[in-house]
């Protein structure tokens, strides 16, 4: 799939933002006053910034409101609702916190909604049978664990962040390892795509068009294997290993910030790979994968 900047930014930033909101919502002793303001401002900036980036992916953003209509069937619609509800609930929660009132159940509800939002985002990808690499429980698992990790880092929870870094790093490594086999496992091949398998081995010959088109631009993105391997190592180092080490160093504020920066950079690379490495079955028709 085409690694569109808008979606990479969106999923990464909003993951961080909603991840932070989860922790803020769950915090039994939430910050209040200006401290609360700063935390929530950061969370909203990230979540809203992400959403703003995502709207760049819409070709008709002026109609974006229509996206709320299909919550019964569409994960994208559910994500929109999730974001709206999570942000509203948390706004109320935050407003009250500014005035020093902590309505904890509201925080829990907001946290749940924030998690659900990240989950819905992930389900947009995980539901797609057409992209076997995504069509797996591990997609939401990874999105959620990364959101929680990022949130933990943002909210300065060293222990939680450390543990989550290990979990999400391990999960990410496994996802790559397993993901590489999912296309084959899905069983969709040029033979099944054309129905010509019974008479021999089919192979794409003349392209249907020599000019490009939406499908090729959007769904047939090819990354070199070596390049991808290198990026995986970089991503894992940045998103998990380096922050984990940094977190164990003294001066939590300095190194914590560095850990956050490193983690975010790593997640961005991982997200780039998430899209760039995802093979859509339609590529088969074009003789690619």
């Amino acid at each position, binding site marked *: *799939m085409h690694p569109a900047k808008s979606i990479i930014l969106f999923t990464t930033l909003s993951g961080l933002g909603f991840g932070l909101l989860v922790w803020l919502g769950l915090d039994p002793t939430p910050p209040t006053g200006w401290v609360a303001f700063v935390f929530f401002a950061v969370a909203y900036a990230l979540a809203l910034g992400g959403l703003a980036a995502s709207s760049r*992916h*819409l*070709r*008709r*953003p002026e*109609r*974006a409101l*229509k*996206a*709320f*209509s*299909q919550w*019964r*069937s*569409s*994960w*994208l*619609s559910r994500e*929109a609702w999730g974001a709206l509800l999570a942000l509203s609930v948390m706004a109320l929660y935050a407003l009250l916190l500014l005035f020093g009132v902590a309505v904890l159940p509201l925080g829990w509800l907001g946290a749940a909604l924030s998690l659900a939002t990240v989950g819905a985002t992930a389900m*947009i990808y995980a*539901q*797609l*049978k*057409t*992209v076997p690499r995504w069509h797996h429980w591990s997609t939401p698992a990874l999105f959620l664990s990364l959101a929680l990790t990022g949130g933990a880092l943002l909210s300065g929870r060293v222990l939680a962040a450390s543990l989550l870094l290990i979990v999400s790093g391990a999960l990410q490594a496994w996802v790559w390892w397993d993901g590489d086999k999912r296309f084959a496992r*899905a*069983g*969709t091949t*040029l033979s*099944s*795509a*054309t*129905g*010509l398998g*019974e*008479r*021999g*081995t*089919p*192979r*794409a*010959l*003349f*392209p*249907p*068009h020599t*000019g*490009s*088109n*939406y*499908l090729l*631009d*959007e*769904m047939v993105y090819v990354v070199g294997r070596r390049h991808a391997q290198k990026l995986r190592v970089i991503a894992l180092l940045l998103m998990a290993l380096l922050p984990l080490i940094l977190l164990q160093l003294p001066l939590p504020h300095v190194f914590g910030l560095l850990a956050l920066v490193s983690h975010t950079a790593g997640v961005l690379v991982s997200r780039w790979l998430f899209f760039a490495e995802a093979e*859509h*079955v*339609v590529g088969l*028709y*074009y003789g690619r994968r």
Partner: protein
Amino acid sequence: MTDLPQHSEKKLGLVIDLDTCVGCHACVVACKGWNDQAYGAPLSDSEPYGADPSGAFLNRVHSYEVLPETGPAQHVHFPKSCLHCEDAPCVPVCPTGASYKRAEDGIVLVNEDACIGCGLCAWACPYGAREMDPSAGVMKKCTLCVDRIYNDALPEEDREPACVRTCPANARHFGDLGDPESAVSQLVAERGGIDLMPEQGTRPVNKYLPPRPRDGWGGDTDVLAPYLEPVAEEPEGFLGWLDRTLGKL
């Protein structure tokens, strides 16, 4: 609502005959031409005379080479447009309800006025049957020429999709695949029509008729051999045969 209709009696669709398609792209351009001025926004092109021309088409013709175990390589031209799936994954993913499957005949359409151009439906379609319009920014797909097949303004015989009407090799057939008695259903039954990517679970309405066996060399050699039984090896012998045969005439 983007829920799929429970059940549609009528399942309008296309049957594509891979045995006769010569890969001429007539259906591709007829489709472009019709839809450029029919349903929804015109089908636009970007950089039409530039270095990187591209554009929205609703029907594309691929071509595949097949290497059998024995015998020469075969070549199959392969037109592809929306298959109007019964379990169309492109419909439920749509956040706006723009993408829908008509209850009365199963045609999958995009309501362009409601489309936000998110592209998710195209991601969900395994067949590459949806293309975003570069200018209008709305999703385009085969409409099964819904504005032709019921069109009172057209003569009866023209109430068929533009691609079917134009196909010079008669490789495209249109009809109700929900009716086992229809000509298309019969054709599918007779020729063993197949689904594309059955494992995707989309249950396409459109069917593909596989190419008939090719290059039957050797199969009926015995039947054919007697036809070449020599009457003569040498010209003289041949002339003798000629004499005998003509004498009889």
